[in-house]
Protein backbone atom coordinates (compact mmCIF):
# COMPACT_ATOMS: atom_id res chain seq x y z
CA UNK A 1 0.00 0.00 0.00
CA UNK A 2 1.27 3.42 -0.96
CA UNK A 3 1.71 6.01 1.81
CA UNK A 4 0.93 9.66 1.08
CA UNK A 5 0.54 12.58 3.50
CA UNK A 6 -2.74 14.46 3.32
CA UNK A 7 -0.93 17.78 3.21
CA UNK A 8 0.96 16.75 0.08
CA UNK A 9 -2.33 15.78 -1.50
CA UNK A 10 -3.86 19.07 -0.37
CA UNK A 11 -1.09 21.19 -1.87
CA UNK A 12 -1.11 19.21 -5.11
CA UNK A 13 -4.91 19.36 -5.42
CA UNK A 14 -4.91 23.13 -4.89
CA UNK A 15 -2.35 23.55 -7.66
CA UNK A 16 -4.35 21.29 -9.98
CA UNK A 17 -7.68 23.00 -9.29
CA UNK A 18 -6.03 26.40 -9.57
CA UNK A 19 -5.29 25.68 -13.23
CA UNK A 20 -8.93 26.04 -14.16
CA UNK A 21 -10.56 27.76 -11.20
CA UNK A 22 -9.45 31.38 -11.21
CA UNK A 23 -11.73 32.20 -8.27
CA UNK A 24 -9.61 30.02 -6.00
CA UNK A 25 -7.60 32.11 -3.53
CA UNK A 26 -5.32 30.54 -0.93
CA UNK A 27 -4.33 32.15 2.35
CA UNK A 28 -1.89 30.77 4.87
CA UNK A 29 -0.62 31.94 8.25
CA UNK A 30 3.12 31.52 7.87
CA UNK A 31 2.95 27.73 7.80
CA UNK A 32 2.58 27.20 4.05
CA UNK A 33 5.73 25.13 3.81
CA UNK A 34 4.27 22.80 6.43
CA UNK A 35 0.69 22.69 5.13
CA UNK A 36 1.95 22.61 1.52
CA UNK A 37 -0.19 25.47 0.34
CA UNK A 38 3.18 26.95 -0.52
CA UNK A 39 2.97 24.84 -3.67
CA UNK A 40 -0.03 26.90 -4.72
CA UNK A 41 1.79 30.08 -3.78
CA UNK A 42 4.64 29.14 -6.03
CA UNK A 43 2.36 28.28 -8.93
CA UNK A 44 0.04 31.28 -8.59
CA UNK A 45 1.73 34.01 -6.56
CA UNK A 46 -1.01 36.53 -7.38
CA UNK A 47 -3.67 34.29 -5.84
CA UNK A 48 -1.75 33.37 -2.73
CA UNK A 49 -1.71 35.49 0.41
CA UNK A 50 0.70 34.87 3.23
CA UNK A 51 -1.07 36.59 6.11
CA UNK A 52 1.62 36.10 8.70
CA UNK A 53 1.06 34.52 12.10
CA UNK A 54 -2.40 36.02 12.48
CA UNK A 55 -5.10 33.40 12.04
CA UNK A 56 -8.04 35.54 13.15
CA UNK A 57 -7.35 38.24 10.61
CA UNK A 58 -6.73 35.63 7.92
CA UNK A 59 -10.14 34.01 8.35
CA UNK A 60 -11.97 37.34 8.15
CA UNK A 61 -9.96 38.48 5.14
CA UNK A 62 -11.07 35.27 3.42
CA UNK A 63 -14.66 36.04 4.42
CA UNK A 64 -14.36 39.43 2.76
CA UNK A 65 -13.05 37.77 -0.40
CA UNK A 66 -15.98 35.35 -0.39
CA UNK A 67 -18.48 38.22 -0.32
CA UNK A 68 -17.01 39.43 -3.61
CA UNK A 69 -17.57 36.04 -5.26
CA UNK A 70 -14.20 34.40 -4.75
CA UNK A 71 -13.49 30.96 -3.29
CA UNK A 72 -10.87 31.38 -0.57
CA UNK A 73 -9.16 28.50 1.19
CA UNK A 74 -7.53 29.36 4.52
CA UNK A 75 -4.84 27.06 5.77
CA UNK A 76 -3.04 26.75 9.09
CA UNK A 77 -2.62 24.26 11.87
CA UNK A 78 -5.99 22.86 12.92
CA UNK A 79 -5.54 23.83 16.54
CA UNK A 80 -4.85 27.48 15.78
CA UNK A 81 -7.72 27.80 13.36
CA UNK A 82 -10.10 26.23 15.85
CA UNK A 83 -8.86 28.22 18.84
CA UNK A 84 -7.44 31.51 17.59
CA UNK A 85 -10.03 32.09 14.90
CA UNK A 86 -13.10 30.62 16.61
CA UNK A 87 -14.91 33.95 16.75
CA UNK A 88 -14.11 34.68 13.11
CA UNK A 89 -15.27 31.25 11.98
CA UNK A 90 -18.46 31.49 13.99
CA UNK A 91 -19.46 35.14 13.79
CA UNK A 92 -18.34 35.96 10.28
CA UNK A 93 -17.88 32.83 8.18
CA UNK A 94 -20.64 30.60 9.54
CA UNK A 95 -23.18 33.22 10.62
CA UNK A 96 -23.09 34.70 7.12
CA UNK A 97 -22.80 31.27 5.45
CA UNK A 98 -19.84 32.36 3.36
CA UNK A 99 -17.95 30.15 0.91
CA UNK A 100 -14.76 29.80 2.88
CA UNK A 101 -12.86 26.52 3.05
CA UNK A 102 -10.94 26.01 6.24
CA UNK A 103 -8.05 23.60 5.85
CA UNK A 104 -6.84 22.43 9.25
CA UNK A 105 -3.46 20.74 9.04
CA UNK A 106 -1.48 18.79 11.64
CA UNK A 107 -4.69 17.64 13.27
CA UNK A 108 -5.12 15.19 16.13
CA UNK A 109 -1.82 14.02 17.60
CA UNK A 110 -0.04 14.18 14.27
CA UNK A 111 2.14 17.15 15.22
CA UNK A 112 3.49 14.64 17.66
CA UNK A 113 6.89 15.95 18.71
CA UNK A 114 5.66 19.54 19.11
CA UNK A 115 3.50 18.38 21.99
CA UNK A 116 0.20 19.31 23.56
CA UNK A 117 0.31 22.99 22.52
CA UNK A 118 0.13 21.89 18.88
CA UNK A 119 -2.06 18.80 19.09
CA UNK A 120 -5.58 19.46 17.96
CA UNK A 121 -7.96 17.25 19.87
CA UNK A 122 -10.95 19.55 20.30
CA UNK A 123 -11.34 21.02 16.80
CA UNK A 124 -14.12 18.67 15.70
CA UNK A 125 -16.11 19.51 18.84
CA UNK A 126 -15.73 23.24 18.22
CA UNK A 127 -16.40 23.20 14.49
CA UNK A 128 -19.31 20.79 14.73
CA UNK A 129 -21.17 23.16 17.02
CA UNK A 130 -21.40 25.91 14.38
CA UNK A 131 -24.49 26.06 12.19
CA UNK A 132 -23.85 26.07 8.41
CA UNK A 133 -20.39 24.51 8.70
CA UNK A 134 -19.69 21.21 6.95
CA UNK A 135 -17.09 19.22 8.89
CA UNK A 136 -14.98 16.67 7.05
CA UNK A 137 -12.35 14.31 8.34
CA UNK A 138 -10.75 12.58 5.31
CA UNK A 139 -9.23 9.14 5.75
CA UNK A 140 -6.52 9.38 3.10
CA UNK A 141 -4.93 11.48 0.39
CA UNK A 142 -7.62 10.70 -2.19
CA UNK A 143 -10.27 11.81 0.27
CA UNK A 144 -8.53 15.15 0.69
CA UNK A 145 -8.76 15.94 -2.99
CA UNK A 146 -12.36 14.73 -3.11
CA UNK A 147 -13.23 16.86 -0.08
CA UNK A 148 -11.64 19.93 -1.59
CA UNK A 149 -13.36 19.53 -4.95
CA UNK A 150 -16.78 19.02 -3.35
CA UNK A 151 -16.24 21.87 -0.91
CA UNK A 152 -15.62 24.18 -3.86
CA UNK A 153 -18.92 23.15 -5.41
CA UNK A 154 -21.28 23.58 -2.48
CA UNK A 155 -22.63 26.77 -0.96
CA UNK A 156 -21.40 27.48 2.55
CA UNK A 157 -18.26 26.98 4.58
CA UNK A 158 -16.40 23.69 4.95
CA UNK A 159 -13.81 22.54 7.47
CA UNK A 160 -11.35 19.90 6.23
CA UNK A 161 -9.30 18.22 8.92
CA UNK A 162 -5.97 16.79 7.83
CA UNK A 163 -3.29 14.63 9.37
CA UNK A 164 0.33 15.69 9.10
CA UNK A 165 1.99 12.34 8.52
CA UNK A 166 1.95 9.90 5.61
CA UNK A 167 -0.85 7.39 5.74
CA UNK A 168 -2.05 4.57 3.52
CA UNK A 169 -4.10 5.30 0.43
CA UNK A 170 -7.08 3.03 0.93
CA UNK A 171 -8.87 0.86 -1.56
CA UNK A 172 -12.25 2.53 -1.12
CA UNK A 173 -14.59 5.11 -2.58
CA UNK A 174 -13.43 8.68 -2.13
CA UNK A 175 -15.17 10.79 0.48
CA UNK A 176 -18.68 12.06 -0.29
CA UNK A 177 -20.14 14.89 1.77
CA UNK A 178 -23.10 13.59 3.78
CA UNK A 179 -22.28 9.91 3.22
CA UNK A 180 -20.75 7.24 5.39
CA UNK A 181 -19.05 4.43 3.50
CA UNK A 182 -19.43 0.85 4.70
CA UNK A 183 -15.97 -0.63 4.25
CA UNK A 184 -16.58 -3.96 5.99
CA UNK A 185 -19.92 -5.58 6.61
CA UNK A 186 -20.71 -7.35 9.85
CA UNK A 187 -23.55 -7.75 12.33
CA UNK A 188 -21.91 -7.92 15.76
CA UNK A 189 -20.68 -4.39 16.29
CA UNK A 190 -20.51 -1.15 14.29
CA UNK A 191 -17.17 0.61 14.32
CA UNK A 192 -17.42 4.18 13.05
CA UNK A 193 -14.05 5.77 12.34
CA UNK A 194 -12.69 8.87 10.66
CA UNK A 195 -9.33 10.14 9.51
CA UNK A 196 -6.31 7.95 10.08
CA UNK A 197 -8.30 5.78 12.45
CA UNK A 198 -10.08 4.27 9.44
CA UNK A 199 -7.15 2.02 8.46
CA UNK A 200 -6.77 1.27 12.17
CA UNK A 201 -10.41 0.17 12.36
CA UNK A 202 -9.95 -1.99 9.27
CA UNK A 203 -7.00 -3.73 10.88
CA UNK A 204 -8.98 -4.23 14.08
CA UNK A 205 -11.94 -5.65 12.14
CA UNK A 206 -9.70 -8.22 10.45
CA UNK A 207 -8.29 -9.31 13.81
CA UNK A 208 -11.76 -9.38 15.37
CA UNK A 209 -12.92 -11.62 12.53
CA UNK A 210 -10.23 -14.10 13.51
CA UNK A 211 -11.75 -14.11 16.99
CA UNK A 212 -15.18 -14.72 15.53
CA UNK A 213 -16.49 -11.16 15.98
CA UNK A 214 -18.08 -9.75 12.83
CA UNK A 215 -17.49 -5.99 12.94
CA UNK A 216 -19.03 -3.56 10.49
CA UNK A 217 -16.69 -0.67 9.68
CA UNK A 218 -18.08 2.70 8.64
CA UNK A 219 -15.84 5.41 7.25
CA UNK A 220 -17.50 8.50 8.72
CA UNK A 221 -15.46 11.26 7.09
CA UNK A 222 -18.57 13.40 6.83
CA UNK A 223 -18.97 14.29 10.48
CA UNK A 224 -21.41 17.01 9.60
CA UNK A 225 -23.73 16.41 7.91
CA UNK A 226 -23.76 12.98 9.51
CA UNK A 227 -25.11 10.09 7.47
CA UNK A 228 -27.96 9.30 9.83
CA UNK A 229 -29.47 6.58 7.67
CA UNK A 230 -26.19 4.66 7.42
CA UNK A 231 -25.62 4.75 11.17
CA UNK A 232 -29.18 3.80 12.04
CA UNK A 233 -29.24 0.97 9.48
CA UNK A 234 -25.96 -0.38 10.77
CA UNK A 235 -26.91 -0.38 14.47
CA UNK A 236 -30.23 -1.90 13.50
CA UNK A 237 -28.12 -4.93 12.51
CA UNK A 238 -25.40 -4.80 15.13
CA UNK A 239 -27.12 -3.28 18.18
CA UNK A 240 -24.03 -1.42 19.38
CA UNK A 241 -21.65 1.29 18.23
CA UNK A 242 -17.98 2.08 18.81
CA UNK A 243 -16.66 5.47 17.68
CA UNK A 244 -12.98 5.84 16.87
CA UNK A 245 -11.26 9.17 16.35
CA UNK A 246 -8.01 11.01 16.80
CA UNK A 247 -9.73 13.58 18.99
CA UNK A 248 -11.07 13.97 22.49
CA UNK A 249 -13.84 11.51 23.27
CA UNK A 250 -15.91 14.60 24.10
CA UNK A 251 -17.81 16.31 21.36
CA UNK A 252 -16.28 14.75 18.27
CA UNK A 253 -17.50 11.90 16.08
CA UNK A 254 -18.55 9.93 19.16
CA UNK A 255 -20.53 12.93 20.37
CA UNK A 256 -22.27 13.33 17.03
CA UNK A 257 -23.28 9.66 16.90
CA UNK A 258 -24.38 9.69 20.55
CA UNK A 259 -26.73 12.58 19.88
CA UNK A 260 -28.25 10.72 16.96
CA UNK A 261 -28.61 7.37 18.72
CA UNK A 262 -29.77 8.72 22.09
CA UNK A 263 -32.78 10.16 20.36
CA UNK A 264 -33.48 7.61 17.64
CA UNK A 265 -32.12 4.27 18.72
CA UNK A 266 -30.36 4.02 22.06
CA UNK A 267 -27.84 1.18 21.94
CA UNK A 268 -24.72 0.41 23.96
CA UNK A 269 -21.85 2.64 22.84
CA UNK A 270 -18.23 3.16 23.59
CA UNK A 271 -15.61 5.65 22.50
CA UNK A 272 -12.03 5.33 21.34
CA UNK A 273 -10.21 8.66 21.50
CA UNK A 274 -8.21 10.82 23.85
CA UNK A 275 -9.71 10.69 27.33
CA UNK A 276 -10.25 13.99 29.12
CA UNK A 277 -6.57 14.93 29.36
CA UNK A 278 -3.77 16.85 27.70
CA UNK A 279 -1.34 14.91 25.57
CA UNK A 280 2.47 15.21 25.20
CA UNK A 281 5.47 15.02 22.87
CA UNK A 282 6.70 11.80 21.33
CA UNK A 283 6.74 9.63 18.21
CA UNK A 284 3.32 9.59 16.57
CA UNK A 285 2.70 5.85 16.82
CA UNK A 286 3.74 5.66 20.47
CA UNK A 287 1.55 8.64 21.35
CA UNK A 288 -1.47 7.11 19.66
CA UNK A 289 -0.85 3.91 21.57
CA UNK A 290 -0.36 5.70 24.90
CA UNK A 291 -3.51 7.79 24.52
CA UNK A 292 -5.65 4.82 23.66
CA UNK A 293 -6.07 5.22 19.92
CA UNK A 294 -4.96 1.88 18.53
CA UNK A 295 -6.28 -1.26 16.93
CA UNK A 296 -5.81 -3.11 20.22
CA UNK A 297 -7.95 -0.52 22.02
CA UNK A 298 -10.59 -0.88 19.31
CA UNK A 299 -10.54 -4.67 19.65
CA UNK A 300 -10.83 -4.56 23.41
CA UNK A 301 -13.73 -2.10 23.44
CA UNK A 302 -15.51 -3.83 20.57
CA UNK A 303 -15.39 -7.16 22.33
CA UNK A 304 -16.69 -5.63 25.55
CA UNK A 305 -19.56 -4.01 23.65
CA UNK A 306 -20.50 -7.29 22.00
CA UNK A 307 -20.39 -9.02 25.39
CA UNK A 308 -22.58 -6.32 26.95
CA UNK A 309 -25.35 -7.08 24.49
CA UNK A 310 -25.92 -10.64 25.66
Amino acid at each position, binding site marked *: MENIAMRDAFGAALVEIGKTNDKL*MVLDADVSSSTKTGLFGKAYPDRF*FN*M*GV*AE*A*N*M*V*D*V*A*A*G*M*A*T*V*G*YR*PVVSAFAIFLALKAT*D*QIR*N*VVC*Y*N*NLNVIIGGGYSGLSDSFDGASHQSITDIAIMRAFPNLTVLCPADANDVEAALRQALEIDGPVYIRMCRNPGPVLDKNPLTIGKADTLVEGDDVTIGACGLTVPMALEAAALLAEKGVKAEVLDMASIKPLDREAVLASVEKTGCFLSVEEHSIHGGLGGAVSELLAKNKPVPMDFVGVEDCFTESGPYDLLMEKYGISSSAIIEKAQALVASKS
Partner: protein
Amino acid sequence: MTTKTNKELQALAQQFRINVIKTLNDKGTGHWGGSSSVAEILTYLYFRQMNIKPEQPDWADRDRLILSKGHASPMLYAILEEKGYLPEGTLSSFREINSTLQGHPCMNKTPGVEMSTGALGHGLSVGLGMSLMAARNENPFKTYVIVGEGCLNEGQSWEAIMAAGKFAPKDLVLLVDYNKVQLDGHSKDIMPLDPLADKFRSFNWNVAGKTYNGHDVDEIEKSFKWLSKQNEGPCVIIYDTTKGKGVDFTEDTHTWHGAPVSDDHLKDALPQLKSVLSKWEDE
Protein backbone atom coordinates in the same frame (compact mmCIF):
# COMPACT_ATOMS: atom_id res chain seq x y z
CA MET B 1 -31.55 62.58 -6.54
CA THR B 2 -30.07 66.07 -6.52
CA THR B 3 -26.93 66.47 -4.48
CA LYS B 4 -27.56 67.86 -1.07
CA THR B 5 -25.73 70.89 0.23
CA ASN B 6 -23.53 70.57 3.28
CA LYS B 7 -26.19 72.30 5.37
CA GLU B 8 -28.81 69.87 4.14
CA LEU B 9 -26.54 67.01 5.13
CA GLN B 10 -26.10 68.54 8.60
CA ALA B 11 -29.86 68.74 8.94
CA LEU B 12 -30.31 65.21 7.65
CA ALA B 13 -27.81 63.78 10.15
CA GLN B 14 -29.59 65.65 12.93
CA GLN B 15 -32.93 64.25 11.76
CA PHE B 16 -31.42 60.75 11.91
CA ARG B 17 -30.38 61.41 15.51
CA ILE B 18 -33.97 62.27 16.30
CA ASN B 19 -35.29 59.16 14.53
CA VAL B 20 -32.78 57.03 16.38
CA ILE B 21 -33.37 58.39 19.86
CA LYS B 22 -37.12 58.04 19.43
CA THR B 23 -36.66 54.44 18.30
CA LEU B 24 -34.38 53.63 21.21
CA ASN B 25 -36.91 55.14 23.61
CA ASP B 26 -39.74 53.22 22.00
CA LYS B 27 -37.84 49.90 22.12
CA GLY B 28 -36.15 50.43 25.47
CA THR B 29 -32.93 48.98 24.03
CA GLY B 30 -30.04 49.93 21.73
CA HIS B 31 -26.91 52.06 21.76
CA TRP B 32 -27.33 55.82 21.65
CA GLY B 33 -23.79 57.07 22.38
CA GLY B 34 -21.97 55.41 19.49
CA SER B 35 -24.89 55.92 17.09
CA SER B 36 -25.00 59.65 17.64
CA SER B 37 -21.23 59.87 17.39
CA VAL B 38 -21.16 58.53 13.84
CA ALA B 39 -24.23 60.37 12.46
CA GLU B 40 -22.52 62.90 10.19
CA ILE B 41 -19.83 60.51 8.95
CA LEU B 42 -22.38 57.89 7.92
CA THR B 43 -24.75 60.47 6.45
CA TYR B 44 -21.97 61.96 4.36
CA LEU B 45 -20.92 58.53 3.08
CA TYR B 46 -24.41 57.48 2.03
CA PHE B 47 -25.66 60.81 0.69
CA ARG B 48 -22.53 62.21 -0.93
CA GLN B 49 -19.59 59.91 -1.09
CA MET B 50 -20.44 56.32 -1.90
CA ASN B 51 -21.14 54.93 -5.34
CA ILE B 52 -24.25 52.87 -4.60
CA LYS B 53 -27.60 51.89 -6.07
CA PRO B 54 -30.10 51.36 -3.27
CA GLU B 55 -32.57 49.88 -5.74
CA GLN B 56 -29.97 47.23 -6.57
CA PRO B 57 -28.24 46.38 -3.29
CA ASP B 58 -26.21 43.57 -4.88
CA TRP B 59 -24.83 45.68 -7.75
CA ALA B 60 -21.33 44.27 -8.21
CA ASP B 61 -19.46 47.58 -8.51
CA ARG B 62 -21.02 49.25 -5.48
CA ASP B 63 -18.79 50.75 -2.83
CA ARG B 64 -18.81 48.71 0.38
CA LEU B 65 -19.27 50.01 3.89
CA ILE B 66 -18.56 47.92 6.96
CA LEU B 67 -19.71 49.30 10.27
CA SER B 68 -17.21 47.50 12.44
CA LYS B 69 -18.64 49.20 15.53
CA GLY B 70 -21.85 47.30 14.86
CA HIS B 71 -23.60 48.57 17.97
CA ALA B 72 -24.19 51.82 16.06
CA SER B 73 -26.67 49.84 13.95
CA PRO B 74 -29.64 52.15 14.67
CA MET B 75 -27.92 55.02 12.86
CA LEU B 76 -27.09 52.78 9.92
CA TYR B 77 -30.68 51.49 9.77
CA ALA B 78 -32.15 55.01 9.90
CA ILE B 79 -29.98 55.90 6.92
CA LEU B 80 -30.69 52.71 4.97
CA GLU B 81 -34.40 53.38 5.39
CA GLU B 82 -34.08 56.95 4.16
CA LYS B 83 -32.00 55.75 1.20
CA GLY B 84 -34.74 53.31 0.24
CA TYR B 85 -32.99 50.04 1.07
CA LEU B 86 -35.74 49.37 3.59
CA PRO B 87 -39.47 50.06 3.39
CA GLU B 88 -40.62 53.15 5.25
CA GLY B 89 -41.29 52.42 8.88
CA THR B 90 -38.85 49.51 9.15
CA LEU B 91 -36.85 51.28 11.84
CA SER B 92 -39.75 50.82 14.23
CA SER B 93 -39.16 47.07 14.23
CA PHE B 94 -35.60 47.47 15.54
CA ARG B 95 -34.61 44.52 17.76
CA GLU B 96 -38.08 42.96 17.64
CA ILE B 97 -38.50 39.25 17.19
CA ASN B 98 -38.66 38.25 13.48
CA SER B 99 -37.40 41.69 12.48
CA THR B 100 -35.11 42.40 9.53
CA LEU B 101 -33.32 44.77 11.90
CA GLN B 102 -31.18 42.76 14.28
CA GLY B 103 -29.55 44.28 17.33
CA HIS B 104 -26.31 44.28 15.39
CA PRO B 105 -26.11 44.42 11.59
CA CYS B 106 -26.79 41.16 9.73
CA MET B 107 -25.95 40.97 6.03
CA ASN B 108 -28.37 38.14 5.34
CA LYS B 109 -31.34 39.85 6.96
CA THR B 110 -30.95 43.52 6.06
CA PRO B 111 -30.49 44.78 2.47
CA GLY B 112 -27.65 47.26 2.26
CA VAL B 113 -25.68 45.73 5.12
CA GLU B 114 -22.41 44.51 3.61
CA MET B 115 -21.10 42.56 6.59
CA SER B 116 -22.52 41.28 9.82
CA THR B 117 -20.78 42.87 12.78
CA GLY B 118 -21.31 43.03 16.52
CA ALA B 119 -18.30 41.26 17.91
CA LEU B 120 -15.76 44.08 17.75
CA GLY B 121 -12.52 43.83 15.82
CA HIS B 122 -13.64 42.06 12.64
CA GLY B 123 -14.44 44.87 10.25
CA LEU B 124 -11.04 45.87 8.99
CA SER B 125 -9.99 42.29 8.24
CA VAL B 126 -13.13 41.68 6.21
CA GLY B 127 -12.69 45.01 4.46
CA LEU B 128 -9.14 44.07 3.60
CA GLY B 129 -10.39 40.88 1.97
CA MET B 130 -13.00 42.82 0.00
CA SER B 131 -10.55 45.44 -1.17
CA LEU B 132 -7.94 42.86 -2.18
CA MET B 133 -10.52 41.25 -4.44
CA ALA B 134 -11.84 44.63 -5.63
CA ALA B 135 -8.41 45.26 -7.05
CA ARG B 136 -8.99 42.29 -9.38
CA ASN B 137 -12.24 43.80 -10.72
CA GLU B 138 -12.38 45.88 -13.85
CA ASN B 139 -14.12 48.60 -11.86
CA PRO B 140 -12.49 48.58 -8.46
CA PHE B 141 -14.92 49.69 -5.79
CA LYS B 142 -13.96 51.39 -2.56
CA THR B 143 -14.26 49.66 0.78
CA TYR B 144 -14.94 51.89 3.77
CA VAL B 145 -14.58 50.53 7.29
CA ILE B 146 -15.76 52.47 10.33
CA VAL B 147 -14.22 51.68 13.69
CA GLY B 148 -14.31 53.24 17.12
CA GLU B 149 -11.28 53.33 19.33
CA GLY B 150 -12.77 50.51 21.43
CA CYS B 151 -12.89 48.41 18.27
CA LEU B 152 -9.21 49.24 17.82
CA ASN B 153 -8.45 47.72 21.24
CA GLU B 154 -8.97 44.31 19.71
CA GLY B 155 -5.78 42.49 18.73
CA GLN B 156 -7.36 41.46 15.47
CA SER B 157 -7.63 45.12 14.43
CA TRP B 158 -3.85 45.37 14.64
CA GLU B 159 -3.38 42.14 12.74
CA ALA B 160 -5.48 43.73 10.03
CA ILE B 161 -3.64 47.06 10.19
CA MET B 162 -0.37 45.16 9.83
CA ALA B 163 -1.63 43.05 6.93
CA ALA B 164 -3.17 46.05 5.15
CA GLY B 165 0.20 47.77 5.43
CA LYS B 166 1.74 44.78 3.66
CA PHE B 167 -0.78 44.36 0.85
CA ALA B 168 -1.44 48.12 0.48
CA PRO B 169 -4.85 47.96 -1.20
CA LYS B 170 -5.41 51.33 -2.83
CA ASP B 171 -9.14 51.39 -2.25
CA LEU B 172 -9.34 50.45 1.40
CA VAL B 173 -10.35 53.37 3.61
CA LEU B 174 -10.50 53.22 7.38
CA LEU B 175 -12.56 55.89 9.14
CA VAL B 176 -11.97 56.22 12.86
CA ASP B 177 -14.87 57.60 14.87
CA TYR B 178 -12.54 58.79 17.58
CA ASN B 179 -14.86 59.84 20.39
CA LYS B 180 -12.46 58.65 23.09
CA VAL B 181 -15.16 56.98 25.18
CA GLN B 182 -15.67 53.23 25.20
CA LEU B 183 -18.14 51.05 27.12
CA ASP B 184 -16.53 51.28 30.53
CA GLY B 185 -15.10 54.78 30.48
CA HIS B 186 -12.79 57.17 28.72
CA SER B 187 -10.21 55.53 26.51
CA LYS B 188 -7.41 57.34 28.33
CA ASP B 189 -8.35 55.24 31.37
CA ILE B 190 -9.46 52.05 29.62
CA MET B 191 -6.87 51.70 26.84
CA PRO B 192 -5.15 54.82 25.53
CA LEU B 193 -4.35 54.79 21.81
CA ASP B 194 -2.55 58.09 21.36
CA PRO B 195 -0.59 58.92 19.35
CA LEU B 196 -3.02 57.15 17.04
CA ALA B 197 -2.03 58.71 13.72
CA ASP B 198 1.60 57.83 14.39
CA LYS B 199 0.66 54.24 15.01
CA PHE B 200 -0.92 54.00 11.58
CA ARG B 201 2.07 55.73 9.99
CA SER B 202 4.43 53.26 11.54
CA PHE B 203 2.35 50.44 10.03
CA ASN B 204 2.87 52.03 6.60
CA TRP B 205 -0.60 53.48 6.20
CA ASN B 206 -1.42 56.62 4.27
CA VAL B 207 -2.70 58.85 7.07
CA ALA B 208 -4.68 62.04 6.54
CA GLY B 209 -2.50 64.95 7.62
CA LYS B 210 -4.95 66.25 10.17
CA THR B 211 -7.76 65.10 12.39
CA TYR B 212 -11.14 66.30 11.11
CA ASN B 213 -14.18 67.31 13.10
CA GLY B 214 -16.54 64.39 12.51
CA HIS B 215 -19.66 66.42 13.28
CA ASP B 216 -18.95 69.24 10.82
CA VAL B 217 -19.93 68.33 7.27
CA ASP B 218 -17.63 71.02 5.83
CA GLU B 219 -14.75 69.28 7.59
CA ILE B 220 -15.87 65.82 6.51
CA GLU B 221 -16.03 67.12 2.95
CA LYS B 222 -12.42 68.27 3.28
CA SER B 223 -11.37 64.86 4.54
CA PHE B 224 -12.84 63.20 1.46
CA LYS B 225 -11.22 65.82 -0.78
CA TRP B 226 -7.94 64.70 0.74
CA LEU B 227 -8.90 61.10 0.07
CA SER B 228 -9.74 61.80 -3.57
CA LYS B 229 -6.17 62.95 -4.16
CA GLN B 230 -4.53 59.82 -2.77
CA ASN B 231 -2.97 57.26 -5.06
CA GLU B 232 -1.66 55.01 -2.37
CA GLY B 233 -3.54 52.92 0.13
CA PRO B 234 -4.52 51.87 2.64
CA CYS B 235 -5.86 55.24 3.77
CA VAL B 236 -7.04 56.22 7.22
CA ILE B 237 -8.92 59.30 8.33
CA ILE B 238 -9.31 60.06 12.02
CA TYR B 239 -12.35 62.08 13.07
CA ASP B 240 -12.70 63.93 16.34
CA THR B 241 -16.17 63.11 17.56
CA THR B 242 -18.25 63.22 20.71
CA LYS B 243 -19.99 60.14 22.02
CA GLY B 244 -23.68 60.89 22.63
CA LYS B 245 -23.38 64.10 20.54
CA GLY B 246 -26.32 66.49 20.56
CA VAL B 247 -27.81 65.93 24.01
CA ASP B 248 -26.06 67.65 26.91
CA PHE B 249 -26.47 64.88 29.46
CA THR B 250 -25.32 62.13 27.08
CA GLU B 251 -22.20 63.78 25.67
CA ASP B 252 -18.72 62.45 26.38
CA THR B 253 -19.77 59.85 28.91
CA HIS B 254 -19.74 56.08 28.88
CA THR B 255 -22.96 55.95 30.89
CA TRP B 256 -24.79 56.63 27.63
CA HIS B 257 -23.01 53.89 25.72
CA GLY B 258 -26.00 51.59 25.86
CA ALA B 259 -28.38 52.86 28.54
CA PRO B 260 -32.08 52.75 27.71
CA VAL B 261 -33.68 56.08 26.81
CA SER B 262 -36.58 56.67 29.21
CA ASP B 263 -39.55 58.91 28.47
CA ASP B 264 -38.08 61.58 30.76
CA HIS B 265 -34.75 61.39 28.96
CA LEU B 266 -36.49 61.72 25.65
CA LYS B 267 -38.44 64.72 26.85
CA ASP B 268 -35.18 66.38 27.80
CA ALA B 269 -33.32 65.36 24.68
CA LEU B 270 -35.79 66.11 21.90
CA PRO B 271 -35.95 69.91 22.28
CA GLN B 272 -32.17 70.06 22.25
CA LEU B 273 -31.91 67.95 19.12
CA LYS B 274 -34.77 69.77 17.41
CA SER B 275 -33.43 73.26 18.07
CA VAL B 276 -30.17 72.36 16.34
CA LEU B 277 -32.16 70.80 13.52
CA SER B 278 -34.13 73.99 12.93
CA LYS B 279 -30.93 75.98 13.04
CA TRP B 280 -29.59 73.91 10.12
CA GLU B 281 -32.91 74.06 8.30
CA ASP B 282 -33.12 77.82 8.63
CA GLU B 283 -29.64 78.50 7.36
